[in-house]
């Protein structure tokens, strides 16, 4: 298998993780207008929790599931801190999520210590024609596709999904028809937590996480979300995959330490280009 193809596959798998984090950011931003700076924390919490639960003897599957639920819970808590008080502006909420993220460091170090943790994912590989594919990579891609399909169904077909979209579309009108915009915002935070958690349990076997890995998760997820225009969760998949592959190529052909700089550069370039027309985050919220 050529270097190029193996970089490509690695990039697609990691990009799936970025896309999951990005979709959480987008859902939270659409419903609450808040850029959730604690989004990376959810992935770290889930990665840590899964490694602990597996260490305690819980089998694969249930361990990851509980870890994702914990991440969703931490998402809900983040939402309570950030938006539950009525009249909080999105700017104040943004700072609150930053505070939650930093507070998260303390809690994580208290529970799990300051050393990186990992756990083994699906071992082994299989052949598809000429290609040799790690099972963990295949798992990441399959789970991500299933999650995005479920998200699409949820927003397009269910009444609750429409109610969330209504808050994104016109919060004032949503409250007029009886939808609690705050409650929907909390749901969005919980969903964002769960999606970040799924990314965490999928990516931790590839790369150990430590308490401050949230920065990398956030930067990559945010860049993917910006690439997707902060619009629809489904677009985040394209954004995440693009970013993942680009970073894998940079790491493969240039230097591994350049890859997160690439994410930042990309995000900055797009933000500046959009800001030249109108404030980017507002534009994406329309």
């Amino acid at each position: 298998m050529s270097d190029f193809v193996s970089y490509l596959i690695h990039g697609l798998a990691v990009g799936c993780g970025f896309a999951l984090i990005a979709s959480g950011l987008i859902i939270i931003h659409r419903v609450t207008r808040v850029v959730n700076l604690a989004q990376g924390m959810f992935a770290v919490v889930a990665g840590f929790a899964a490694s602990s639960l597996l260490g305690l003897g819980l089998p694969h599957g249930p361990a990851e599931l509980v870890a994702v639920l914990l991440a969703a819970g931490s998402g809900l808590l983040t939402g309570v801190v950030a938006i539950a008080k009525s009249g909080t502006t999105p700017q104040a909420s943004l700072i609150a999520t930053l505070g939650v993220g930093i507070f998260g460091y303390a809690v994580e170090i208290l529970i799990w210590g300051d050393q990186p943790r990992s756990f083994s994912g699906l071992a082994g590989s299989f052949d598809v024609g000429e290609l040799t594919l790690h099972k963990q990579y295949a798992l990441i891609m399959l789970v991500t596709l299933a999650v995005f399909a479920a998200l699409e169904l949820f927003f397009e077909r269910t009444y609750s999904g429409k109610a969330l979209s209504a808050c994104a579309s016109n919060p004032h009108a949503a409250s007029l028809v009886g939808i609690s915009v705050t409650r929907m915002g909390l749901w969005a935070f919980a969903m964002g937590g769960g999606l970040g958690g799924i990314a965490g349990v999928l990516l931790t076997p590839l790369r150990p996480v430590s308490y401050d890995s949230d920065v990398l998760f956030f930067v990559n997820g945010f860049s993917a979300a910006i690439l997707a225009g902060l619009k629809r969760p489904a677009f985040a998949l394209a954004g995440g995959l693009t970013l993942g592959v680009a970073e894998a190529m940079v790491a493969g052909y240039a230097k591994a330490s350049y890859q997160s700089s690439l994410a930042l550069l990309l995000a900055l370039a797009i933000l500046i280009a959009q800001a030249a027309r109108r404030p980017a985050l507002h534009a994406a919220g329309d």
Partner: protein
Amino acid sequence: MIAVADLTVCYGAAVALDRVSLQVARGEMVALVGANGAGKTTLLNALSGVVRPASGSIRINGRLAHVPEGRQLFPDLSVDDNLRLGAFRVRERDPGWVYEVFPGLVRVKKQHAGSLSGGQQQMVAIGRALMSRPDVIAIDEMSLGLAPLVVRELGRQLRALNAERGLAVLLVEQNARLALKLCTTAYVFETGRVVAHGSCEELARSALIAGAYFGAASEDVS
């Protein structure tokens, strides 16, 4: 149906409504007319709980639906979704009967509400309010920005809703001539006070209304 007594609403130091009393009977069509800033919209907002009164009382028997000024649709959701979301508080969420009231919406039910004409958007806004199965519907500036032909059509549909389903209507209008033609009772607002009220026929004849409001509004109706 609705009984408002001595209602006072303040925005900071400014008095938006000053001891306003008003009644809407079951199945009645009532117009609130007056210039911009006279307090009509504030009254609707107080009725639907958006603003809190400083003093006075509001009694509503039955369900009130509020069609806000500017229609306030969900622009990037479909017409059908807009209607269904109107039923958020109730169990029955099939919009079939609203399409019977506004047959013109059937053709565009899959389109984004934001892509419709002003008249169609007003129908969606009223339809969405109807989805909550109200006993009384309060419509703020229904005719604003709409062509006379469209306004006449909307008026016909409101009348039909009122006659066939017993829906009470509280119509806030700057276009006094339209409101007085459509409704049976009217209240005239001026700087937060009710300065006249009575049957629409009488008020339409009164020089006060003719002088104060028909001048500005007459180009909207013909």
